[in-house]
């Protein structure tokens, strides 16, 4: 019995099909599994291993290399605070300290209510809005302490649910087509259009 839902299994098969070699779908499938569970569970890694034809250990070994893939549970909102050079010059460490105090969770920790996980991030490419943070990979900045407190309130109250999907959901737009360049479907379409 698969851990991924039927719907996600179907999505997963479509993802695998767009790569010349199925192992290439490993990371996209990790994102897909995180979208379902919020983190990458051992059960999901077993499904992924089967889908791409490697062992679960290889999925785990690959996933642990990457910052965005969480092999332990995280909060509903992952707050990634950039402290790299451009943000540091604008007071990112003071902001991070404030965030840790305000939420009562240090870097790497999750609040007791499971609402927030705090991360110290490397440069997020939002340097023109420094200091910046990402919440579930959505940008906010420049932020000061008061700005963060308002943001946290809004997140807790669900006022940003539209802009900030739940943790793990990366891309809300799915591929709408299969491969065409070498497929029979594609040949038909070529006939039609030429």
């Amino acid at each position, binding site marked *: 019995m698969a851990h991924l839902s039927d719907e996600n299994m179907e999505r997963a098969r479509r993802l695998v099909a767009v790569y010349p070699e199925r192992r290439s779908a*490993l990371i996209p499938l*990790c994102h897909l599994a995180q979208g379902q569970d919020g983190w990458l569970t051992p059960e999901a890694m077993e499904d992924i291993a089967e889908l791409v034809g490697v062992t679960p250990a290889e999925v785990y070994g690959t996933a642990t290399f*990457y910052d965005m893939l969480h092999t332990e549970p995280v909060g509903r909102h992952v707050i990634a605070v950039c402290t790299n050079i451009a943000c540091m010059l604008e007071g990112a460490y*003071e902001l991070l300290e404030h965030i840790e105090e305000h939420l009562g969770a240090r870097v790497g920790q999750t609040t007791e209510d499971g609402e927030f996980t705090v991360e110290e991030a490397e*440069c997020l490419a939002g340097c023109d809005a420094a200091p910046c943070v990402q919440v579930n990979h959505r940008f906010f900045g420049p932020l000061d302490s008061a700005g963060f407190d308002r943001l946290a309130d809004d997140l807790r109250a669900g006022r940003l649910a539209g802009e900030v999907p739940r943790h793990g959901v990366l891309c809300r737009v799915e591929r709408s087509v299969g491969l065409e360049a070498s497929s029979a479907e594609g040949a038909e379409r070529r006939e039609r259009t*030429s």
Partner: protein
Amino acid sequence: MITGAAPIITARLVHGDSHTLERYLATGGYEGLRAALAMTPEAVREQVDKASLLGRGGAGFPAGRKWSMLRKAEITYLVVNGDESEPATFKDHLLVERDPHQVIEGTIIAAYALGVSQAFIFCRGEFALGMERLQQACNDAYEHGALGAGIFGSSFSLDLVVHPGAGAYICGEETALLESLEGKRGFPRIKPPYFPAVIGLYGAPTVVNNIETMSNLPWIVTNGGDAFAALGHGSSTGTRLFALSGRVERTGWYELEMSKTTFRDLIYDASLGGGIRGGGELKAFIPGGVSAPWFGPDHLDLGLDQEAVGAAGSMLGSGSVVVMDHTTCVVRAAWRITRFFARESCGQCTPCREGSGWLEKILLRIEEGNGRDADLDLLMDVCDNLAPGISWPPQQTTICVLGSSIPSSIASAIRMFRDEFLVHVKEGGCPMAPSR
């Protein structure tokens, strides 16, 4: 000098809906592709050669020359590098979010010129909105007939896959990117071969080009390579997107004619950086991403020119300029940059894996007031293990250039501000305000 050169890749961004197909088509979108399809692939390559387009990722390798290395084989791939993670670099982020169709059109043109029927855009995972817009644009481009079988009624077919990264700086290194795209840890591959054109994705010949490089192609094909080469000077042709951050009044992105515009223009002109924050004093600036050695006020009149910056001992790199002012602690700045490399080292090579961590620890103890007299020599000694001779361009002791990039900021900071390091050691701590 700020020239009146019209923007090439950011022209559309005056529109709030620049990411949509509708706006793209209303502003000349996919005309470059139509023009390209009316030409032979060789003729398209010729225009790109004429444009002398330098790769915009960081290494600045001529795009045309990269293409000509592609080994003729049955299966070849084009991979677009959108894993932008060099600290202070945010141009590709802008391009995928605000003009994804331009990226895609450039990719299709490149694929046509190369005779490739399968392309990938590797998008940095943290760009969630960018990825959504790229995927939407990809779907729309198929629908519009610009992707898929028989593009715009021609015999050329191309499939494009938008692929998400998962958070690792090293995947910007092209061979690590290919490993990641193959579903593995992002370990750079041992060289030679130096170029994926020889052995790339799944072992097949592959060209890897940057997002901004691709974004220039529709304009080049529409207006001709000569028109592009007429902008800039020498080998630095065209315009380039510069990302300005740090202690200036107006941080942001600026598309500027290469070579003719200077760092002074970029940092001080009222229409660009607007000068140092609060009328402060410039202390140092990084001219091209944190892998680049630092410059000081003496270098302000250098042009934004790949060769000139290289000859002056640094690099234009990823086109990101970080400004430090009189309130910046250079020990802390060097420490933070080194900490980045320590966190992002993939761990394959000893000098990088161990050296980055030691350097970070030594810099931190100096900053926190526990530095020792011998620490400056020790820092330079570890740097020498990473990049023997600490010359520019650096010598390499590691598989990829991440390791040899680490000494840039440390050696610059010590060379330019030795006294500030010594004050930290003597006085047992940082003399500057805490944050900067």
